[in-house]
Structures are given as structure tokens and as C-alpha cells.
């Protein structure tokens, strides 16, 4: 019966393989997900005691909540607790008398104006009136009656960030049609604030995801943090990439917030030049190397590239100093900059198989 022990060993090896897989060794990883005003905030902290990690994550959430309260553009000033931005928007509409704003908001306005100019107005947080005429300020999108005349009038009013004059923590607008909507900026700003806070608290390794925009601190153990990029038309990731210390990634897509009317998709990204939602692009992903405002750039930079027509996308990216970007158009063709292509690992079986991926090198 010499054969039995060998067979038992074989079975034992299988059993150990199973046990090994199921009992993945416990990592010092704290992970939490929360909803803050319709945004999913997902925080991973590695290598901190759980209690401390929990406190840190809660503080990040608290900060984000405060920021949201401050920047909520749609709370009317007449309500009991108008947001700071709501008050400012009311002041803009009522004339060009400067009102006091917090230093934090002043800095944000100057920075946002800078980026708006750099993107030749494609990133334009001053078009709040357009956004609300499309109903995109609500948490839940519903189809609206498209009023072409009204949209044209709103575009013609030409609200621009440069209409806002910020001086000594006061602000006013030379154009009463300016209404600020920092929706495409605030999440990135919150990301930078979260990273700054965690670094100040001596946290070495963390991954913060605010509404899809992600910033990395340190690593996940001995490996870099790994991030999946959502497929715009499937409930899965299309690709994955390693996010090294200080890097941030952001995607603008037509799949998160949109409504459909007569078979057409109207997403929340509005072309400020036409006043209509962009329909030629499914998603744009940008990867931002470590820098002071990496989070803001991950949020902001994808929008102008999204809005620009196909032949202008690479130029628009260059204008914003974005080297790492990926565009998926309405026909699901994928255009990736060379720099980003080297970092991506495709997960989608269709992309892997057909590889209808067009590589574009920046001029």
C-alpha cells in the first residue's frame, strides 16, 4: 500500500492551496466607503493601526463634507444656511459690488480662472446658468425640455471666469450672467486637501477616491497602488494601472450623469461654446504626475479634452501640459497617448483581442 501516502499528500497540497486562497493573510489595510452628498468616497489606508486609520478617514470625510457645504452652488441664498458660493452667486447676479469671501475660496477662484484661461475657456465653471437649464445640478437627472432659444441666450451672455475680479479676499463679477459651478473642480480640490492632510498626519500609504478621482500616497505594501479605469459601456474596468506616490488619475465620462431623450444621450459635460452636452465622446482619462495640485488637475484637465473635437483633443491636452491621456469616442475607438499606453494594462477582453486601440503620440 505504498501508493496511499503519495495520494494523500497530493490531496493535502490541494487542500492547502484552497486554504491559502481562502485565508488570504490579513493585511494592515483599512478600507472604508461613504456617501457624501451623492458622491462615493472610498479611502484605503495601509500600515496604520485600525483605530487611527478610522479617525483619519473620518476626518477626510468631514473635511469633504464641509467643503461641499461651502461650495454647494445650488442652495439659494434665501434659505437659512446659504453656502458661501451661493451667496457669491447671488451677489454676482445683483451687480458688481465686491463682497467678502474666504481666503480659501479666493485661492480656488484664482486657480480655476488660471486653468480656464489655459484651456481657452473649455473648462468654464462660470456657466452655472447653463448647467441648471439642463437640470444637471440635481442629484438625479431627468430629461428636460430643451429650450434652444434660452440656451443660445445663455451662451451669448458669455459668462467667463475672467469676468470675476478677486482682490484682497473680495470678489465681484463684471458680468451678471456669471454663475459659479465648481462641480468640475471641487472633487479634485478635496483630493489635494485630503492628500495634504494625510501627509501632515505622517500617513505614508493611502489611496483616496472621491467620486472617481483618485490620488495615491505611498504604496499598498510592497506593491504600488493599483487602480482600475471604468469601461464607459460595461460594468467592468477596461484597464488597470499602477498609481505611484503622488500620482492622481481622473476620468470624465458620459455614463455617470446623463439623461436620454429621443434615443440621444445628454451627459453632464456641456460645451461652453455651444451650450449643449458633448455627444462625440464616451470618456477621457487623464493621469497626473506628482505636483502640488495633482488632484485638481485630475478633475479639471479631462473636461477640455472631452469637449474638444477629435482632431483637437491632442492639442488641447498639450495646452494643459497633459502627457498621459486616453480618449474613448462614441464609436468606442480608443486613443491613448504613448506615455499612458506604456502604463496601462488592458483588462477588457474585447480590447485585448481586437486591439482597436489607436496610439497617438503628442507633437
Amino acid at each position, binding site marked *: *500500500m*505504498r*501508493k496511499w501516502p503519495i495520494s494523500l499528500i497530493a490531496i493535502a497540497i490541494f487542500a492547502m492551496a484552497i486554504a491559502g*486562497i481562502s485565508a*488570504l493573510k490579513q493585511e494592515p489595510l483599512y478600507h*472604508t*466607503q*461613504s*456617501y457624501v452628498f*451623492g*458622491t*462615493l468616497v*472610498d479611502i*484605503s489606508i495601509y500600515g496604520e493601526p485600525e483605530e487611527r486609520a478610522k479617525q483619519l478617514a473620518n476626518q477626510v470625510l468631514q473635511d469633504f463634507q464641509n467643503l461641499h457645504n461651502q461650495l454647494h452652488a445650488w442652495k439659494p441664498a434665501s434659505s437659512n444656511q446659504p453656502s458661501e458660493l451661493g451667496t457669491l452667486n447671488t451677489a454676482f447676479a445683483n451687480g458688481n459690488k465686491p463682497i467678502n469671501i474666504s481666503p480659501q475660496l479666493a485661492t480656488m477662484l484664482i486657480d480655476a480662472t488660471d486653468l480656464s484661461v489655459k484651456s481657452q475657456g473649455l473648462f468654464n465653471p462660470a456657466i452655472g446658468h447653463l448647467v441648471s437649464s439642463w437640470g444637471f445640478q440635481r*442629484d*438625479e*437627472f*431627468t430629461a428636460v425640455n430643451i429650450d434652444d432659444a434660452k440656451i443660445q441666450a445663455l451662451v451669448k451672455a458669455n459668462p467667463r471666469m475672467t469676468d470675476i475680479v478677486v482682490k484682497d479676499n473680495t470678489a465681484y463679477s463684471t458680468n451678471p450672467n456669471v454663475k459659479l459651478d465648481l462641480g468640475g473642480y471641487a472633487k479634485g480640490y478635496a483630493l489635494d486637501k485630503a492628500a495634504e492632510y494625510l501627509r501632515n498626519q505622517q500617513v505614508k500609504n493611502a*489611496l483616496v*477616491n472621491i467620486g*472617481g*478621482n*483618485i490620488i495615491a500616497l505611498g504604496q*499598498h505594501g510592497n506593491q504600488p*497602488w*493599483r*487602480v*482600475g*479605469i*471604468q469601461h464607459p459601456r460595461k*460594468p*467592468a*474596468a477596461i484597464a*488597470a494601472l499602477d498609481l505611484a506616490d503622488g500620482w492622481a*488619475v*481622473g*476620468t470624465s*465620462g458620459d*455614463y*455617470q450623469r446623463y*439623461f436620454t431623450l429621443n434615443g440621444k444621450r445628454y451627459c453632464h459635460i456641456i460645451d461652453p461654446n455651444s451650450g449643449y452636452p458633448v455627444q462625440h465622446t464616451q470618456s477621457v*482619462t487623464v493621469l497626473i504626475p506628482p505636483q502640488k495640485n495633482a488632484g485638481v488637475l485630475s478633475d479639471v484637465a479631462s473636461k477640455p479634452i472631452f469637449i474638444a473635437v477629435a482632431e483637437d483633443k491632442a492639442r488641447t491636452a498639450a495646452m494643459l501640459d497633459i502627457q498621459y491621456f486616453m480618449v474613448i469616442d462614441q464609436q468606442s475607438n480608443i486613443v491613448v497617448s504613448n506615455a499612458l499606453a506604456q502604463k496601462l494594462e488592458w*483588462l477588457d477582453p474585447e480590447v485585448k483581442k481586437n486591439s482597436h486601440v489607436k496610439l497617438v503620440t503628442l507633437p
Partner: protein
Amino acid sequence: MLSLLRSPKPTFKHMLIGDWLTIIFSVMLTVYLFQTLWSHEHASKVQIRIGDKVYAAYDLNQQRDIKVHGAIGDAVIHISQGKVRFSKSPCHNQYCVHQGWLTRSGQAAICLPNQISLELIGEQKPYDSLNY
């Protein structure tokens, strides 16, 4: 009869052609079973989160509807033989329902208005967080 207790050394010389065919077929069947049931992407569980809490984790190897009470109402999550989907949701846009079936580990469906998320977890998650 006692010969059974003696250690009879198995020899292969008794094997006939049909036996070899049986063995080859069985090996192929076993390999196929490993490939389909043990692939790394195969998810084994769905984790349901409501708000910031993990509500429950369910095995995917079953057929059942789970009614979950979210922020704005009751959603129905349908599990069927290794797959899961939102089958009913009180939210207006119904994005979560339109996401359809989730089958592989790491896939997720999120219903922001109702604050419910589904995430498939398996042996291996291909990434730490999802950029969308």
C-alpha cells in the same frame, strides 16, 4: 480472499485501450472543471454596501432575490448562478439596473441615489480602487 490484504502492486500492464481513453477523457474533464470553476476572475461572493456600512456578503452560487432598504427605498438584488445584478431600484435614472449582470471579481455596480453598491469579490481583486 486474504490476497486483498497483501499489498498488490498496481501495474499498468492490465490497461486496455478503452481504459486509456477513459483516463484521457477524465483528465480532460478534470482540467476543464479546473478552468471553468477555478479561474482567478471567477467571483465567489457579492458584497452589498448600504451607505458606509457593509450590509452583507452573499455567495454567488445560488438563485435568490435580496430586498435591500437603501436611502430612498427598497432595491431588489438578483443573484443567479455566479452572477448578480440590480433587478429593481427606486432611483429615477435606473443606471444601476441598466448596468446589467456582474460576473467577474472586481466588478461593481453603484446606485448613488439609493446609496447601495454591489461589488464582486473573489480570490483576487485586480485593483485597489476604481477610477470612473
